[in-house]
């Protein structure tokens, strides 16, 4: 092992032994392998690929810009590389490991058929700027996925381009902005209403799209009420952004009235589609008066979350906004022949949102998911997801506190930290103890509207046995707290590759890359 500076701490050199073990000689603990950085072990002269080293006859075409110093990037041979990443992978929790009940994230099973199909060379080895006649299958797939999304949502037009949910939000708000421009009301309508419970991306997107954000509080029942919205809906308002079901796991019962009120005043209704999994096939957002909604394909349509991406956030819109969507536009010319248009001749599009067309490999997966379930299966997905969340709710209601009373939830159930009062423990401690029990914690401290939030979204992918096991552990931990146990929670997690990490230190003295100890 190379010498290490004080920041590049190694468990062998500086580590205190984990609380529950004696120290091992190797730094490994059974199957738990300690793994260094590639920079600790690789060398820039080593390579794991077998390309020859060509002699270039002439460097004139490089215009005197050829690199002088060698790149100090470490290389590893294939066996070393494989071992490095396999060991790293073993330090991650994943859906394939167990229930991953992160509220608002819809961590459902990722079917492997979808992986296989996305890797067909007819999709993966395809360039977006090939002549149209060579990519007819890709256009047909885009058209078909669009049809599914429009039918499921009851909306009129779709933009597949957005590369993530927040990118979709931007697309939707920009379409509204463009529509206001055409109406001559853009400078007048500067405000976007956002409930306090919204995802952080909502106010952030609204601000970036050039609007002023006005926060609206929810009522004691966790919902947005028409009478609380009405006073805010002035001629200065461009739109309201709502998540439905909302981030408290509740369906916004006033949604139609709110939509009607906004429309009467010339404003639009944006829906954050992050929670679409709860209502797919049960109700169409278009029927509720929604003007624009993004759909997180990495949530509802099972494309893998991949440790934080890539995602995809197609946007569906109503008639009011259809004209303003970004390119590209797939046009069916008849007889199964498609062409790709970059300009919508009749209308002012918001402009290009991303290079090329968007997340093709995710569209393949999403369509495979939709075809596999069919209209009946997708409806069953929503039902099972909602059933599972309510099952957890009733099985835990006697021990945990629900901020908005014991009402039916949708696909996720929200608890707060009232039940922890006086125990000296917080939501975080509970979550970390759950990790020691082999479960990924629920979303914590979100939504911001309740204190110490615990937002649980089991999804439809869990068997009853899996739900029961999760509930049993949740209850067991809660009972332990009620018995006065504390240390177990404060010291958790103990059985993980790392214990709690010093986040303050990370932010105060940021070390964002490896640096050579010799420098």
């Amino acid at each position, binding site marked *: 092992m190379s010498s290490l500076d004080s920041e590049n701490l190694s468990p062998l050199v500086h580590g205190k032994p984990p609380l529950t073990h004696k120290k091992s000689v190797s730094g490994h603990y059974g199957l738990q392998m300690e793994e260094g950085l590639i920079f600790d072990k*690789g060398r820039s002269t080593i390579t794991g690929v077998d390309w020859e080293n060509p002699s270039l006859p002439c460097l004139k075409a490089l215009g005197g810009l050829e690199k002088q110093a060698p790149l100090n990037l470490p290389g590893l041979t294939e066996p070393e590389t494989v071992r490095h990443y396999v060991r790293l992978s073993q330090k991650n929790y994943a859906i394939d490991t167990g229930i991953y009940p992160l509220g608002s994230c819809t961590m459902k099973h990722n079917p492997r058929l979808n992986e296989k199909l996305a890797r067909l060379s007819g999709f993966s080895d395809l360039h977006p700027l090939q002549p149209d006649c060579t990519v007819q299958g890709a256009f047909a797939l885009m058209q078909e996925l669009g049809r599914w999304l429009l039918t499921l949502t009851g909306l009129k037009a779709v933009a597949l381009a957005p590369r993530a949910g927040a990118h979709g939000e931007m697309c939707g708000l920009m379409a509204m902005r463009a529509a206001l421009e055409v109406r001559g009301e853009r400078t007048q309508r500067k405000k976007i209403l956002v409930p306090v419970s919204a995802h952080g991306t909502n106010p952030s997107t609204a601000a970036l799209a050039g609007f002023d954000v006005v926060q609206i509080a929810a009522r004691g029942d966790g919902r947005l009420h028409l009478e609380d919205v009405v006073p805010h809906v002035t001629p200065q308002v461009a739109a309201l952004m709502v998540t439905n079901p909302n981030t408290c796991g509740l369906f916004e019962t006033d949604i139609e009235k709110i939509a009607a009120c906004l429309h009467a005043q010339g404003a639009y209704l944006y829906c954050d589609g992050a929670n679409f999994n709860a209502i797919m096939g049960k109700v169409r957002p278009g029927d509720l008066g929604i003007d624009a909604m993004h759909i997180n394909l990495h949530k509802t349509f099972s494309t893998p979350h991949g440790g934080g991406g890539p995602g995809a956030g197609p946007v569906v819109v109503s008639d009011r906004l259809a004209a303003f969507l970004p390119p590209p536009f797939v046009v069916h010319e008849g007889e199964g022949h498609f062409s790709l248009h970059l300009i919508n001749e009749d209308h002012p599009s918001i402009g290009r949102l991303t290079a090329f067309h968007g997340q093709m490999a995710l569209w393949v997966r999403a369509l495979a998911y939709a075809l596999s379930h069919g209209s009946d299966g997708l409806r069953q997905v929503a039902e099972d997801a909602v059933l599972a969340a309510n099952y957890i709710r009733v099985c835990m209601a006697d021990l945990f506190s629900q901020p908005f009373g014991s009402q039916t939830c949708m696909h996720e159930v929200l608890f707060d930290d009232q039940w922890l009062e006086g125990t000296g423990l917080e939501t975080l401690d509970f979550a970390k103890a759950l990790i020691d029990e082999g479960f990924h914690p629920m979303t914590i401290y979100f939504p911001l509207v309740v204190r110490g939030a615990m937002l649980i979204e089991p999804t439809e992918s869990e068997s009853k046995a899996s739900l029961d096991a999760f509930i049993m552990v949740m209850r067991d931990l809660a009972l332990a707290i009620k018995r006065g146990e504390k240390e177990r929670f404060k010291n958790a997690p103990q059985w993980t590759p790392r214990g709690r990490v010093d986040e303050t230190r990370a932010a105060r003295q940021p070390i964002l890359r490896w640096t050579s100890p010799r420098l």
Partner: protein
Amino acid sequence: MRYLPLTDEDRSLMCNRIGVTEVDDLFNDIPHEKHLTHLLDLPQHQSEYAVEMQIKALAKRNHSAQNGPFFLGCGLYRHHIPASVDHLIQRSEFLTSYTSYQPEISQGTLHYLFEFQTQVAILTGMEIANASLYDGSTACAEAVAMACRITQRTPVLLSGGLHPHYGEVTRTALQMKTIDIRSSSVKPEGGENLLDQITADLACVVVQTPDIFGHLHDLRPLAERCQSLSVLLIAVVTEPFSLGLLLSPGEMGADIVVGEGQAIGNPLNFGGPLVGLFATRQKFVRHMPGRLCGQTIDVQGRRSFVLTLSAREQHIRREKATSNICTNSGLCALAFSIHMTLLGGEGLRRVARLNHQKALELVSALQTLPQVEVLNRTFFNEITIRLPMSADLIAEKAAQRGVLCGVPASRLFPSERFENLLIMATTELTTDQERHHLIETLRSLLTEEGGK
């Protein structure tokens, strides 16, 4: 349904426990008259095999790059991807995990993000890099927004050689800020004089090298001028393999480097998902968009990694965030990082040299076609040629003969008069046979179409 573990018996037991007679009772909050009572007009569930056949039929209607000679680039490149890359990114623990909000059980992801950030920083010659953005074009727009925040100025100057999509995306993203975006005129023959257009009122200058036509740009004089006027220099790199052979933007004095990382580890995928690279100077760290992974210690003093500086991000700052980005391109960044680890500095250099060699060979071969003019004096692995007729027509006709010969410039610049220009890329995968096939196809098409 094969993906749904609950049985009807389970469902009924669970309904009993909840105290409802049927699942539909749980949907009573949905307005009654809007509640769908029928199935939507879409096909019903299908077997795995049936879905596979259906999607495969669509794939078969595409002409994959594997099917014949292939010379497309323009920001996406077809390189060899070692088999272990795709195998490793399909490890369940990488593929099916989420953002590392619980660092104790996501050190795997955090560890590779830290390595990725370091690799990108070294590759671009910069001090720090983030954990990736959606793609190069959105990274470019984020960089321009960041430069405006830092300098507190707004006019922005884009080089004419910038990938047109990048320029369009930047305009789209910044349209609501009423930022004055100036574009230098497009010069397919090269020889853009950007230096004289850099004025002290600018926030930043955006230059791509190699540019969309394949020309290389010496950023050093631009960096010098920018620095003297406190204007930020943003360099765009869409072919990261070029950095194995050429001076990095950091070495030439860029302040922010953004790029498309697809070429390393990721297939073309018809343009997505991609992986946006974003690197800059340490002093700008708190202005950076996107996720950052940092090194710290755990309760036992062991080296650990954690997402950090989230005070910049939307989930904390909400309407005051530096960017609305939540998702990054994690798995594509992993593919990039694994491939880069397999390459190492030495492998990258070799592949880069091979790419340049193939381009030199292509240029020589094209010179045997008297009707074709190569516009580049400098290039890495991509060049622009002028044909005596519509490049779109030639590309279409060549495709009918199984040859994907390049990108007609008119596809990227519909409003410019570049009808006869074709942009062509080579990589280490281009064989002598494919090049020969291309040249003979062009030769016969130029004769046939020229005679009409």
